């Protein structure tokens, strides 16, 4: 009953005209960047982070969140019609979605991905609403030792679940750790790796780092490829899937939702992994696995539901513990902090309006997205024909303005350009930027909590094993690290990795 009351309060916040507007702007931009190949939600969010400063924290964060889950919708459109993933979480949708489009069934493919996304998104919000406040109450028992062990688990899981080479992912994570060390040591307040420059005293900013590695690098990388675009726009008049489509999609949507939500909650999991997992699961459960890849609707419905549910699940560790499970959430954490808010166990209790307002806005945002993606699909299709020689310079211009605006600091622009060029080469040689950014954010937290835990235990390392939550996290982490040595699991992991490379 109390929850209902709070939800009502949340709708009161979300339905304020200014917040409705921000919610709409968020999901609209989200769909836009989702549709456009080359830039994803991370670039868009870091670009717009400074813009949110003008308004209240509610409206700013409602908008940022809208961009994230909006991009999950938009990405599928490009995948299905052009066979280029609009953003990373829609890679799998290309496989069967584009085949369906070629067979003249683009309408149902788009329809099921929008409706599946809606169902999964809504379900994820309900789970988030039920779980997050409970978890926040427990989370107050999390001291430095527990945070440390949880983050160790997160980092291990990140490298474990990442696609492609584990060695490369670990290397990137190490680089991220070192970059995260720059600035004042959080315990002694002594400068580290600043090379005597005042610009490094506060460390490297997350906005220029992320905008460089994702935004600038993405543009540089894309200019080099001649993207062949054959937009299938023939028959998208009938968007609604027929009875048979629904019957075949119901299971995949249900399973995709649950799978996506829980992979989203786990640190390092997230939307991309959940889509591959859902696709693999549906293929295995299907009575006609050989038809996967040739245009079956299950191959669209499952992964699309999964990535939207994961987007919802990812909010849980951020809102309750203040730990971002993926890069997008790390950026959102930045947005909270810029507005003077510290996500963590106290946030839901201290700022109920903010928390429930964001939740309520997500219901509303999901409805808006349904409208944006079903009747207005033609507009997005036309957008796909915009030439890149117009689009890419514009994006570069916006990143430079955005980075400067975030701190009025020219030095940040140099930092962004540096990481843009670095990110370009990383991409060329198959190094993923995500482990770097996550280690960059989690590394300092990890170190800080390790040292605090040791101060509290007066230097006794046993504290990590004496405390049950901490011990459990460490044991799972060790298990994950050892598991690649077991042949069966290694094989499975390679299959997932290969799948992603094949597309």
């Amino acid at each position, binding site marked *: 009953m109390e929850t209902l009351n709070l939800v009502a309060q949340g709708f009161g916040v979300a339905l304020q005209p200014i917040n409705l507007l921000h919610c709409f702007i968020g999901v609209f931009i989200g769909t836009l960047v989702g549709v456009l190949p080359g830039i994803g939600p991370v670039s868009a969010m870091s670009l717009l982070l400074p813009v949110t400063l003008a308004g209240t924290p509610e409206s700013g964060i409602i908008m940022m969140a809208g961009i994230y889950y909006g991009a999950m919708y938009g990405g599928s459109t490009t995948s299905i019609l052009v066979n280029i993933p609009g953003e990373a979480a829609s890679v799998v949708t290309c496989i069967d979605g584009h085949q369906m489009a070629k067979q003249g069934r683009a309408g149902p493919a788009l329809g099921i991905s929008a409706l599946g996304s809606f169902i999964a998104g809504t379900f994820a919000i309900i789970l988030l609403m039920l779980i997050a406040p409970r978890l926040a109450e427990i989370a107050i028992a999390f001291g430095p030792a527990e945070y440390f062990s949880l983050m160790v688990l997160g980092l291990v899981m990140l490298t474990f679940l990442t696609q492609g080479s584990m060695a490369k992912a670990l290397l990137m994570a190490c680089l991220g750790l070192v970059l995260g060390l720059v600035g004042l040591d959080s315990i002694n307040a002594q400068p580290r790796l600043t090379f005597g420059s005042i610009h490094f*005293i506060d460390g490297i900013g997350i906005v220029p780092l992320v905008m460089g590695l994702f935004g600038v690098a993405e543009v540089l990388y894309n200019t080099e490829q001649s993207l062949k675009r054959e937009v299938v726009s023939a028959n998208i008049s009938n968007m609604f899937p027929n009875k048979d489509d629904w019957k075949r999609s119901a299971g995949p949507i249900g399973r995709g939702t649950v799978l996506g939500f829980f992979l989203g909650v786990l640190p390092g999991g997230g939307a991309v992994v959940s889509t591959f997992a859902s696709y693999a699961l549906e293929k295995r459960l299907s009575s006609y696995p050989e038809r996967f890849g040739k245009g079956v609707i299950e191959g669209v419905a499952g992964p699309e539901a999964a990535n939207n549910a994961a987007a919802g699940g990812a909010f849980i560790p951020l809102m309750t513990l203040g730990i971002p499970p993926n890069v997008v959430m790390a950026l959102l954490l930045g947005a909270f902090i810029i507005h003077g808010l510290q996500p963590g166990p106290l946030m839901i209790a201290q700022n109920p309006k903010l928390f429930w307002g964001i939740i309520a806005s997500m219901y509303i945002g999901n409805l808006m997205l349904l409208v944006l993606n079903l009747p207005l699909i033609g507009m997005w299709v036309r957008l796909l024909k915009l030439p890149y020689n117009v689009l890419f310079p514009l994006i570069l211009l916006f990143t430079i303005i955005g980075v400067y605006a975030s701190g009025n600091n020219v030095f940040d622009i140099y930092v962004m350009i540096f990481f843009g060029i670095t990110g370009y080469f990383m991409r060329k040689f198959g190094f993923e930027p995500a482990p770097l950014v996550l280690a960059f954010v989690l590394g300092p937290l990890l170190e800080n909590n390790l040292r605090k835990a040791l101060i509290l235990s007066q230097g006794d390392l046993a504290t990590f094993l004496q405390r049950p939550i901490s011990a459990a996290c460490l044991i799972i982490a060790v298990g994950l690290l050892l598991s690649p040595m077991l042949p069966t699991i290694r094989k499975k992991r390679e299959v997932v990795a290969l799948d992603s490379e094949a597309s």
Partner: protein
Amino acid sequence: MLSSKLLRGVLVALSLAPAAAVAQDFPTRPITFIVPWAAGGATDITIRALADAASKHLGQPIVVENKAGGGGTVGGATMAASAKPDGYTIAQIPISIFRYPIMQGATYDPVKDFTYIANIAGYVFAAYCSAESKLGNWKDVIEYAKTNPGKLTYASPGHGTSPNIGMELMAAASGVKFTEVPFKSTNEVNLAVAGNHTLCGATGLDAKPLAEAGRLKFVNVWTAEPNAKLPGVPTLKQLGYPYVFDSPWGVAGPKGMDPKVVAKLQDAFKKAMDDKTFKDALDKYDMIPNWMDAATYTKFVADYMVAERESLTKLGLAKK
């Protein structure tokens, strides 16, 4: 040759001529107020209210420019290095401007490189203990530290911050040792104490809702006067310590400003102190007015630098 000499002469004459009139007419164009924090934070919002109020008395807008970085020192350092001392560029001077040169070294000298205009306000700090710790007042805290050496843990919002330095100076004065656990924000400190991960904590008044919920208890407040938001909580003076810690912040320009210009700015800020929006902002963000005119502030800085170097050296925080 001749013409360039002539030109230079004309330029010098032109640049000198208005200089004499400047102090009379000041200000004739908008003033830039450098805020060394990101836009939207508590200090930023408070300063914007102050700037708005002061501009009414100056007859020219004061434009706030956020230049965050270096723990709040980048703004002042940049101004000291590059701005003209004409009164059109001023900056907020947070406590870190004085502390960084001692702790890490800096490109400027706080005593010589600024013209101090006015001190404006300070922050309210306080110490509190978790409910489970059973430490109900400050005497309990000192007793506990005496009987359990090294076991009295407290959370601070960062090493070298005012709450950290205050706690250590009190411990030294009482002849006990506390164990500091540095966190990164006020919120984390509150959480550590609420969850009884540390016995005590020291930051601002943000923990009040937690105190009302019975999870922790305030044991002292560090301002000169008792605080209305913490009824019955003793000040450090009432507890017998000769200390007031409020991290005063003020306004300064680059070195060498015309005293008449300084006086005009000082008077405008003095009047702005009575502005309602500004007063509300101070109250909302747990700051207290702490007015010092230009002369008092300048002397205060010189004395403060000596005292601060002494405390920081004693606590092992000074740069070797």
